[in-house]
């Protein structure tokens, strides 16, 4: 049970993550799942829920950090078209593995969150778009959904109320870009996953050109606690404008890599030292990738940065999906950057010129530098090709692809110079 005193909250989404058999409806119900749902369905109005969500200060946990309540309030009413709720479970950002745990260990929390969100938005059909590789998680979710249907938690007239919602799991086919919400919509519609330009935004014209809300797994899993305890309660957790708990997926040169849910505002050092068992080597990391591989690098000097959307932005990076990758002196930063460049070149959907051509070009230059065939001019070319790709495309993949390269060039130019100087014949 989550305490109603915000000061005592230690976990929201992961409150029951360690409970054995939590994925079964029986155990979930024992732990309090769906208990508050009838109150929401029978006594809450849509406006009230959206208003509570706004008050809660919850910001999207998928990466962009857009206020969830505000996103919901953009959905036009009475359009004559259905409104869709899509759960973005295409967790593909390198370094991120939080949604996976949520779905495999506590799927009912997500389902309950989706019913409540769906109810607030007047949704008849909701979908979970799950990353193709998550075979076991998809099975868990489907089993949980079957149980929920059998218990009348999904389907027609949920728990005897007048609200009906159907929930379907759709497996992706392994494309990173389908985690971008408009590419996800394209893919779910049966087309190649290529992002759409905006406007129109999905809230107005999304899935099959109907009003659509796309929320991350963690975001939706936070909804039941907010509705049960109130927006103010959630707002009191964390720091102003950065409310609530956040799951961080910590990986890299730490002793205990894993998912840790901490209040926003916890420092990076605390996350590493107090939760992730500390660094494998040394006392400070060489590079911190704070929000997934697409976010700009932070250095040792940022080790004490509070983990909030705003503080990380001030530090020159992003909270992103909360995937903290810790890199120490043992890592070859050029090899690492080259490997990331390969990932983005492979995952670029190909529609926008700068990303289609730029990502492959960057990878090839880095490959050449890494193999000792670099040229002095490559540094300038890398910078130009990365810089003019970022922010010039339909989606942010190019920005993500440029971030590690620009970070490498900005913070470790000497490493690149050195690699070029050590030319092999």
């Amino acid at each position, binding site marked *: 049970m989550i305490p109603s005193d915000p000061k005592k909250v230690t976990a929201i989404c992961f409150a029951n993550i360690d409970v054995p058999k939590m994925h079964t409806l029986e155990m979930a119900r024992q732990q309090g799942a769906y208990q508050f749902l009838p109150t929401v369905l029978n006594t809450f109005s849509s406006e009230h829920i959206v208003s509570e969500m706004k008050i809660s200060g919850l910001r999207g946990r998928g990466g962009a950090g857009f206020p969830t309540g505000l996103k919901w309030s953009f959905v036009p009413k009475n359009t004559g078209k259905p409104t869709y709720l899509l759960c973005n479970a295409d967790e593909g950002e390198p370094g991120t593995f939080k949604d996976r745990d949520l779905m495999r260990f506590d799927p009912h929390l997500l389902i309950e969150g989706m019913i409540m969100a769906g109810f607030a938005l007047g949704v008849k059909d909701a979908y979970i778009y799950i990353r193709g590789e998550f075979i076991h998680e998809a099975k868990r979710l489907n089993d949980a959904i079957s149980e929920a249907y059998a218990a009348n938690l999904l389907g027609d007239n949920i728990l005897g109320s007048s609200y009906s919602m159907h929930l379907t799991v759709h497996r992706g086919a392994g494309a990173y870009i389908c985690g971008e919400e408009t590419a996800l919509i394209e893919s779910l519609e049966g087309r190649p996953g290529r992002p759409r*330009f905006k406007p129109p935004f999905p809230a107005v014209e999304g899935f099959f050109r109907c009003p659509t809300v796309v929320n991350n797994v963690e975001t939706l899993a936070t909804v039941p606690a907010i509705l049960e305890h109130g927006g103010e309660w959630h707002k009191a957790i964390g720091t102003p404008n950065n409310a609530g708990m956040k799951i961080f997926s910590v990986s890299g040169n730490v002793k205990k890599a894993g998912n840790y849910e901490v209040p926003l505002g916890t420092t990076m050092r605390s996350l590493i030292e107090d939760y992730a068992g500390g660094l494998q080597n040394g006392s400070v990391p060489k590079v911190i990738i704070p929000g997934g591989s697409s976010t700009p690098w932070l250095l040792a000097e940022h080790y004490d940065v509070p983990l909030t959307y705003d503080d990380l932005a001030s530090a020159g990076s992003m909270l992103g999906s909360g995937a903290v990758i810790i890199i120490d002196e043992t890592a070859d930063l050029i090899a690492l950057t080259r490997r990331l460049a390969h990932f983005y070149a*492979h995952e670029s959907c190909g529609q926008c010129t700068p990303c289609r051509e730029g990502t492959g070009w960057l990878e090839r230059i880095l490959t050449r530098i890494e193999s000792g065939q670099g040229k002095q001019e490559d540094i300038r070319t890398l910078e130009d090709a990365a810089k003019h790709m970022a922010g010039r495309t339909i989606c942010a993949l190019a920005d993500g692809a440029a971030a590690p390269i620009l970070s490498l060039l900005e913070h470790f130019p000497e490493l690149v110079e050195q690699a070029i100087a050590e030319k092999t014949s």
Partner: protein
Amino acid sequence: MTTLFINEEEVTVAAGTSILEACRQSNVDVPYFCYHPELSVAANCRMCLVNVEGWPKPPASCCTPVSEGMKVSTESEALVKDREMAMEYLLIHHPLDCPVCDQGGECKLQDYAMEHGSGKGRYLEEKRIIKDKQLGPFVTTSMTRCIHCTRCVRFADEIAGTGDMGVLNRGDHMEISSVVDECLSSELSGNLPDICPVGALLDGPSHDVSRPWEMTRHQSTCTQCPQGCDISIESRGQDVMRIQPIEGSPEPWLCDRGRFVYDAFRNESRLLKPISKQEKVSWNDAINDSIALLKDKRIGIICSPDWSVEGLSAIRLLRDTAFKNAPVAFDLHRRDKRSFAFEEGFSQTTQQIEDADQVVILGSDLRQRLPLVMQRIRKRVLADKPVVRIGSMRYRTNSELQKDMLIRPRDWVSVIASAIEQVMALGKQAAGMQAWLDATQDRHEAGKVLADALLAETCSLLVGEEIRCHNDAAALIHGLDLLMRGCGHAEANNDGRNLIPEGMNAQALTALFAKDRMSVSDIFEDANQGKLDAILLIGSDPIGDGLFPVQAREALKKVALIQIGAIQGEISDQASVLLPASAYSEVEGTFINMEGRVRTAHHPLEVLGDQRPLWKIMMRLLQALGQDIPAVSLEELRIHMHRFIPELTKVDDKQQDAIFLSSARNRKSILPTQITLRTLDVVSRYSMYREGMWARSSELLRGAGERQKLADVIMHPDTLAAQAGSIATLDTDHGQYQFKIDVRDDISPGVLFISKRGIAGDISNVVSVDINGGSA
């Protein structure tokens, strides 16, 4: 309306306009590749980035709508670098083969590389190689040049409606591909090379033969169908290299028929020297031989509708002066000998048809007959506007029609009668309706589709060849006329009566010859009965085209043939004298399209051989006949033309698109007649690749026609349990025939579809047959 600032200039555009469109409307140059005004926005080339004050990143102007007070700048240091980089990205895999690329000289990539590129590429790695695609006879590919703008994919999806292009793979493995090789099935496929901004998709027939800057452009009017598109004929010396559309024309595309017919301009079928008794002779001898056959003789005149109005006016002058009562015919498909309730031609523009509340296609293979009107229809369908069709075949379309009713030609009377009955039941009346109804017995359910559409505020009827060639065409058209009047359309400015003509200049022909017009079969009949001595055939081929090849052959056994034309047809062997006239591409003149829109051709191709403009040949004949010559110059001829068609005096170069000739109307009551028919109705099919002397002489079109060909004789499988490949014995009024038949289920039961030539050409004019024996 939204007001914004572009480079500090205040600009007002419609709300929702994109920044790029706003710039284009204000003549501000923004470079782009993937944008095309006729296609959906893809926003993928990222060349059209602009700066907007207060925005952190430069947005793509093509997909960003304007907002009130927005401050856009299209020139800045940052944009210079962005464009330079966009060019560098685009060029890293692009081959440096401009010297051998057909697009060179009219290539956006080349132009922008000069304007915005850095001049030096820094890409040192391996280049991407993409295999070329086989896209059919008209499109050659060089896919390494592709910049993935997806214009071709969007064209295939949105315009052609064939959806046969697509994108494979991701990232820089992405490639444009077709579903299967040789798949391009669109009659608009020739536009693909035009919309490709680079040299990836190239015009197949003109591949590797010429550079754009070597060509002379001749502005002309296409006469390959009544649409009469503006065309630019591009030549080098004596050779015609290609035909291109003209930007800003009413229709943005050209069809393959009009575009690729040009190889016939310069092949051996052209008539370049006067010929008399199978020998090449001088003009003097040829004229003398003609006069010997014409002077004081009873002649019939058969002319093509596709001459310029000046040429047609000269024919009228010849007739008025020397052959006062000579019968004139110009439609090789007209069976009905009475004058129509209204003559051919549209009462609406294609835009009005696109915008109408309802459109009904009556018995027309519109996609082949008028591909660009079909394109308008497709735009309607995509915008969820209704289009219904009644006809004897579900002719291939590129759009899903709301209703598609199959009927036999003999059912037209009952369809129209049923529609009249239904609108009368709603209290809608027109004088003559009851009399028309009383002359009929049966009713057909398809009438409801017609009646329902006519009840809309605006309704376009596209009346096609199945009605125009009908024995009782005048009565059917009068019936439609009554319906439209009853439903309140006839009194409005655009009443929606669009009778698709056989060729160009329908309204001019009405003005010039309406009272004397006959069916071409009448002329052949007169010849057979000894009422004529000679036939003066001016530019058509009644043996190669039309419904009456048998009658033509019979008639020519009895009378002399003097043929005047630019090209020889199947009839030419029978001509006593052949006089070469300049083709449509080789004359300066006026043309009227089916909408009545006046077009003028200004800068003709150089005349080949000993050809003369038609009007000069007419004047020469008059002179040789001992008459005064009414006109010695084109200007003098135009005075006569203006006398015949006063509306044309209003035409000047500047406003030709604004002048429309209206089609004539005839409100005489024409009632349906009961005739006895055999069991099966015969319909002869039109093929855009095979009909007309020019198309038949074009090898390019013949090749494409082979790919689109259907069997010569087809029936519905339910019709007398027809089986594909079986031999059917047909009884007609002219005797018995045996043909191998094919079956298709998209044609109306009870109908025998034949192609006008091929094995069943001789029964083109047969209206109905009995079938016996079934299979052999």
